[in-house]
C-alpha cells in the first residue's frame, strides 16, 4: 500500500486512538512495543491490564510517567495470571454483591514475555487456565530474556546465540528446541488459543478481539522481533516477522474450542535460511545445522496442517 492509500484506508480499518502512548523507552525497531500498541487498539478502553516484569513494564512505566491510558498494574515477574485471577474474581464478587455496576463488561488481560510465560510464570498461567477464569493472556515472545541482556529462555530457538547460550568450541548456542507454549495452552482445553505477529497487524488485532470476547481463558502467543537481541537491523523487524511466518518457523493459526485453523495457508514454505541469514544470532550456524532446523520446521508445519485438516 502506498503512503497516500494507507492514510486513506487504515483509519477506516482500525481506531486511531492510542491506549499505549508513544514516548516510551523501547529500543528502535522494537517489535514487542509495536505488538503491544496493536493489542491495546484491539482491546479498547474497557480493560484492565496486568503486566509482568520485563521489557514492556520497564519501558512504559518509569516513575513518575506512564504510557498506559487504561488501568494497568505490575507487581512481579511470575505471577501475572494469578493477579489477573484475583482481579477477575474481585469484579465477579463485587458485581454480584451489588458493590459496583460497571457500564460495560470489563475485560481482564495479562501481558508477559516469553520468560514470564514459558519459564517462571508457567505455573501461575497453568493454574489460571485450569480454573477457567475469564481472561486473555498475551505472551510477547522475543525468544530470550531481552530486558536483562539477551539470556536464553525455554522459548529461544535451537541454534540461536544468547549471552547464556554462547557460541563456543563445544556449543552452537541454544542446544534445545523452542518450547511449544501455544500447544501447552491447547492442552489445557481452553476455548481459544492463537499465534500472531505484529508483521500481520490486522490478523493480530482480530485474534485479540476474538480472544477477549470468548468466555473463559484465551491465550495469544505473539512473536515479537527484537533487533537488539536478534542482532539485526532495526528497520527489518517487520520483514523478519513476515519471514518467520513465510518459512514456517512461526506459523500463524488459531485453535477455537479445540479446532485448528491456519490463518495463512502457505502452499510453499520459503527456506528457513532466508529468515536466519538476516539475524546475527544465527550467523555462526553451519549448513548441516540449518538443514536440521529446516527438517524440523517442515515436519512441525506438516503436523500442524494435518491438525487443521489442510492437505
Amino acid at each position, binding site marked *: 500500500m502506498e503512503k497516500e492509500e494507507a492514510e486513506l484506508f487504515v483509519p477506516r480499518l482500525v481506531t486511531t486512538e492510542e491506549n499505549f502512548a508513544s514516548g516510551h523507552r523501547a529500543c528502535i525497531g522494537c517489535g514487542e512495543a509495536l505488538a503491544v500498541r496493536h493489542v491495546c487498539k484491539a482491546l479498547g*478502553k*474497557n*480493560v*484492565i491490564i*496486568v503486566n509482568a516484569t520485563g521489557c514492556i*513494564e*520497564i519501558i512504559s*512505566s*518509569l*516513575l*513518575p510517567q*506512564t504510557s*498506559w*491510558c*487504561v*488501568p*494497568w*498494574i*505490575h*507487581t*512481579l515477574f*511470575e*505471577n501475572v*495470571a*494469578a*493477579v*489477573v*485471577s*484475583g*482481579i477477575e*474474581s*474481585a*469484579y*465477579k*464478587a*463485587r458485581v*454480584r*454483591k451489588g*458493590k*459496583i455496576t*460497571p*457500564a*460495560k463488561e*470489563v475485560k481482564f488481560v495479562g501481558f508477559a514475555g516469553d520468560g514470564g510465560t514459558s519459564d517462571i510464570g508457567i*505455573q*501461575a498461567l*497453568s*493454574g489460571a487456565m*485450569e*480454573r477457567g477464569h475469564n481472561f486473555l493472556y498475551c505472551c510477547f515472545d522475543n525468544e530470550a530474556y531481552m530486558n536483562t541482556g539477551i539470556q536464553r529462555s525455554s522459548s529461544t530457538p535451537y541454534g540461536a546465540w544468547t549471552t547464556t547460550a554462547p557460541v563456543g568450541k563445544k556449543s552452537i548456542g541454544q542446544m534445545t528446541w523452542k518450547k511449544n507454549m501455544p500447544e501447552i495452552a491447547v492442552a489445557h482445553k481452553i476455548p481459544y488459543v492463537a499465534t500472531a505477529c505484529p508483521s500481520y497487524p490486522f490478523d493480530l488485532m482480530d485474534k485479540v478481539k476474538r480472544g477477549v470476547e470468548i468466555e473463559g481463558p484465551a491465550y495469544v502467543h505473539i512473536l515479537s522481533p527484537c533487533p537488539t537481541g536478534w542482532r539485526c537491523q532495526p528497520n527489518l523487524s517487520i520483514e523478519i516477522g513476515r519471514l518467520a511466518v513465510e518459512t514456517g518457523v512461526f506459523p500463524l493459526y488459531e485453535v477455537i474450542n479445540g479446532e485448528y485453523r491456519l490463518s495463512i495457508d502457505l502452499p510453499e514454505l520459503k527456506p528457513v535460511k532466508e529468515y536466519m541469514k538476516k539475524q546475527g544470532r544465527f550467523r555462526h550456524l553451519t549448513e548441516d545445522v540449518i538443514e536440521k532446523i529446516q527438517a524440523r520446521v517442515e515436519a512441525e508445519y506438516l503436523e500442524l496442517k494435518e491438525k487443521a485438516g489442510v492437505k
Partner: protein
Amino acid sequence: MKKVKIEGLEGSFAVAEAVRMANADVIAAYPITPQTHIVERLSEMVADGELDAEFICVESEHSAMSACVGASAAGARVFTCTAGQGLELMHEVLYIPSSMRLPVVAVIANRALSAPLSVWCDHSDVMAIRDIGWIQMFAENNQQAFDLTLCAYRVAEDKEVLFPAMVHLDGFYLSHVIEDMVLPDEEEVAGFIPEYEHPFVLDPDRPVSMGCYGPPFIYPETKKAQEVAFANTRPKIVETWKEFGDTFGRYYSPVEKYKMEDARIAMLTMGSCGETAMLAVDEMREEGEDVGLIRLRLWRPFPFKEFREAVKDVELLVVLDRAISFGMGGPVCSEVKSALYDQRKKPYIVGFIGGLGGRDIPIEGFKYMVSRALEKVKAIERGEEIEAEMIGIRE
C-alpha cells in the same frame, strides 16, 4: 453489648467465622498444615451460601498472595491464610501489598520450617518475614484469633492506614484446639467494619498505573514515604483496639502486662505460650519471686514506647524465642535488646530458645528460665559472656 453467643470453636473455625462476619469478597488460598481447617471451613461457607465470596483454589501460596493483591487492587475485601513453608513461598509477594498500600488480611498458623520436615508450631516462619511492612499481631487464644482478625480488617482498610495486616495464631496450639468463645452480634460486627473503599482501584472509568518502575532518582523517596506511613499506623492500631473494646468488651494493647506492677523480673513471650507463662508466674509469685509477664501483642510496627514503658522498672528481662537466627541467637531477644540499647536505665536481658517444631514448654520450663537467668546475671556481673540457651533439649 447486644446479643452474644457462646460456642466451643476450634481456632481455625473462629478465624473462618471472623472472615464470614467481615463479609470478605475474595478468598485465595492453598492448603497447608496446620492452616487447612481455615480454608476448609471457608470453602464450606462459600459452598453453602453462608458467605458470598469468590473462593480461588490457587495452585500455590505465591499465587494465593498474588491473587489477593489483584483482588485488593480491584477494590475487593480479601483474605488468605497459610503457614510455615507456604509463608516462605509467599515471601516475594508479601512486599507488594505493603509497598502498594493494599489492605490484604492474612492469618498465619505458625509452623516450623524444613529441614527436617515439621508441621508443628514455632515462629521460624514469622521471623523470616519480619521486614515485609505488614501490621503483624499475635493471638494467644481462639477468642483473640477471632477478635484480632476483625481488628485486622478494620485497621488495614482505614484510609489513614491502608497497609496489609497479618494475625498470627500458633499452629495446632490454637488452630486445632476447641475453646469456648464469645461470638458477637453480626450487625455489630458490620458496624465495626465499614464498607471497604480504596481511594485508587483498577477501574476503566478512572485509569491508574500501579506498580511502576522506580529508578534511583525516586525509589528512596517511595520507601521513606512508606516507612513514615507505616510508623503512623501505631496510634491507629491502638485506637482500633480501644474502639473494639468499647464495642465488644475485650480490650487489647500492643504490649500486655501480667502481674507487672511490682515485678523485679519480667518474662517476655509471643503467642499461645503466654497462657502457660501466666500459670508459671502465678506459681513463682506464690513461691515469693517478684515475677511478671509481658506479652507482645503487636509485633509490627514494633511498639517501642509501650515496650520501654513496660520494662522501665524491671531489673531482669527473660526473653523466650520460638525461633533461631542461626549464628545470632533468638531474633525477638535481639530486637528487644536493640529497642532498649539507647535507654539510660535498662534491665539485664537473658534470652532462651525453646518450643521449636512443636516441642511443648511446660510450666517448669518457664520457672527454669527464670532461675537460669538469675544465674546468668551473676555471670554477666563477673564479666563473662553469655549466649542464648536452648531449653528442653535432650543432650
